């Protein structure tokens, strides 16, 4: 039903509305030297970790207690801030200028929510939970219309996975519509409606834990954070323990993480000359159809490779658990790679388009306002050279790989007891991680298709 409504909304778009020029990136393909260096570095770091790291991680944390009053105030401030931003975006989306680059909503959503919040969550875990505007909205609705007894939850993370797949499809295949402010506002309102219905049926806590994909994605990113913000407590610790302590009980979470990885990889490859050359050989099949087939096959490939590596691991260690169990145990070691992929790919967009929030905030409804004198802010001052971007991308992917290998090694030490067995078990995982890392760098090194920016 939501797709029908969306399609109808798409056909009602005024002819003058335009998504043109939203989300421009000014990057250049990664030079071969960076690609080779990154791949070699990933391999060497993996070898280094296997040889050098033979002890369990230091799980000590520095903890500070927050007073009830401070904690309550912090929650209220964050909630008010995020709810205010959500309302501003929705009002601007419905009533503001309908060109994407003249409206604050597309930047708030595609850059602020989809990119900035997960990266901030990887630094400070828990701030989104404290001020989640979606949850605040749903809780307010449920106070007006309380639900009866919540239904039993039997779906794992499947609804979150489906929601995330829908988001990626909207982003990659329908962005000429979903960057249009009024369409985007409609999508967000529809999503809020699903959150209300799901929370009413299964309870707000259950729904926001298992089915609200933004919360899930930010929570996964937060597993990397050195700072954790909780009710009445803030702590500082290495994130290794949170990633290595235990796995997941749900295979749907394994699929979610691997899909996130594959989706980013697909986005990187979707506008390369290589894909267009392949698509042209299959004419008259349209390019978008080829792209969609690759989009559906990429997660299958990533999942298959991961399953194979776990199967090999099980054989090497003579494990008594199933391959599925090992997949669920080791999956958190791929969170650093997932986030590093994501950051390397979208960092240029975060900077080039994110900076436009400054003049847009000064005039969110395109009425000629000049709040705080920021309308004339020169966004070109935030232009980052492609050469600088290369170093950031290379560092992100290599460091993500290094941390992933480090976590996987600690999981193996916990699972298999002996150092020798743990080392042996790592071979298929290291091969897979080096492949993912090299593949990510290879994608970044591909030339763009003509006409693509």
């Amino acid at each position, binding site marked *: 039903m939501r797709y029908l409504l969306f399609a109808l909304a798409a056909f009602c778009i005024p002819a003058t509305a*335009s998504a*043109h*020029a939203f989300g*421009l990136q*000014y*990057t*250049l393909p990664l*030079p071969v*030297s*960076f690609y*080779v*260096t990154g791949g*070699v*570095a990933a391999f*060497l*770091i993996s*070898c*280094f970790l296997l*040889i*050098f790291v033979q002890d369990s991680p230091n799980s000590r944390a520095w903890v500070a207690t927050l007073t009830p009053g401070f904690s309550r105030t912090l929650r209220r401030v964050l909630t008010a801030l995020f709810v205010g931003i959500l309302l501003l975006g929705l009002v601007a989306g419905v009533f503001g200028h309908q060109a994407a680059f003249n409206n604050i909503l597309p930047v708030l959503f595609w850059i602020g929510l989809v990119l900035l919040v997960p990266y901030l969550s990887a630094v400070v875990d828990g701030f989104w939970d404290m001020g989640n505007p979606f949850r605040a909205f749903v809780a307010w609705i449920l106070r007006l219309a309380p639900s009866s007894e919540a239904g039993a939850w039997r779906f794992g993370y499947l609804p979150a996975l489906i929601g995330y797949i829908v988001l990626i499809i909207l982003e990659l295949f329908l962005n000429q519509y979903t960057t249009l402010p009024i369409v985007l506002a409609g999508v967000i309102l529809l999503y809020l409606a699903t959150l209300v219905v799901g929370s009413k049926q299964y309870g707000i806590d259950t729904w926001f834990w298992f089915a609200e994909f933004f919360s899930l994605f930010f929570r996964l990113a937060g597993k990397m954070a050195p700072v954790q913000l909780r009710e009445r407590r803030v702590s500082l610790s290495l994130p290794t323990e949170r990633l290595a302590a235990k796995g997941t009980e749900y295979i749907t979470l394994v699929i979610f993480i691997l899909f996130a990885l594959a989706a980013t990889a697909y986005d990187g490859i979707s506008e390369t000359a290589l894909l267009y050359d392949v698509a042209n050989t299959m004419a008259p099949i349209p390019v978008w159809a080829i792209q969609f087939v690759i989009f559906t096959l990429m997660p299958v490939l990533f999942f298959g490779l991961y399953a194979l590596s776990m199967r090999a691991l099980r054989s090497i260690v003579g494990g008594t658990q199933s391959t599925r169990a090992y997949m669920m145990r080791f999956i958190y070691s791929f969170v650093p790679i997932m986030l590093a992929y994501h950051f390397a790919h979208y960092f240029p967009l975060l900077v*080039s388009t994110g900076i436009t929030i400054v003049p847009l905030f000064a005039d969110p409804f395109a009425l000629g306002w000049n709040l705080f004198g920021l309308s004339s802010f*020169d*966004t*070109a001052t935030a*232009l*980052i*050279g*492609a*050469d600088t*971007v290369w170093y950031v991308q290379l560092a992100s992917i290599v460091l993500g790989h290094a941390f992933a290998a480090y976590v996987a090694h600690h999981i193996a030490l916990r699972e298999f007891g002996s150092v020798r067995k743990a080392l042996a078990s790592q071979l298929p995982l290291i091969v897979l991680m080096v492949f993912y890392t090299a593949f990510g760098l290879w994608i970044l090194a591909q030339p*763009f298709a*003509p*006409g693509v*920016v």
Partner: protein
Amino acid sequence: MDRKKIAAITLVLVGVGIGYTYLTSSGTDATSQTQVFEIEIEDQTMVAGEEMPQVRKGDTVVFHITADAAEEFHLHGYDRSVDIGPDETATLTLLADTAGRFPAELELAKIELLVLEVLP
């Protein structure tokens, strides 16, 4: 510290050193130039001119633009614009001090004309 660990650390340090040397030696040491590009626009289409002009970081880029109708030539990223029209050839000059790929378009019609590549 045992020999294995010493070997591992040495291996990593050597790898980092080689990688750094490889990365930093990849670029050329060309002197800056002034690159001039002639662009002719008819009926909102670029009928003459390069679709992907390439320059080096540090070059001075000059666009000479002739058009059969009034419009605005806008270079994204650098955020530089010049009004164009049938009366005279418009000129846009800029210092390419940031590497990357930067599209230029007819601002009013939202039609992309070319992509300027500034190589490091």
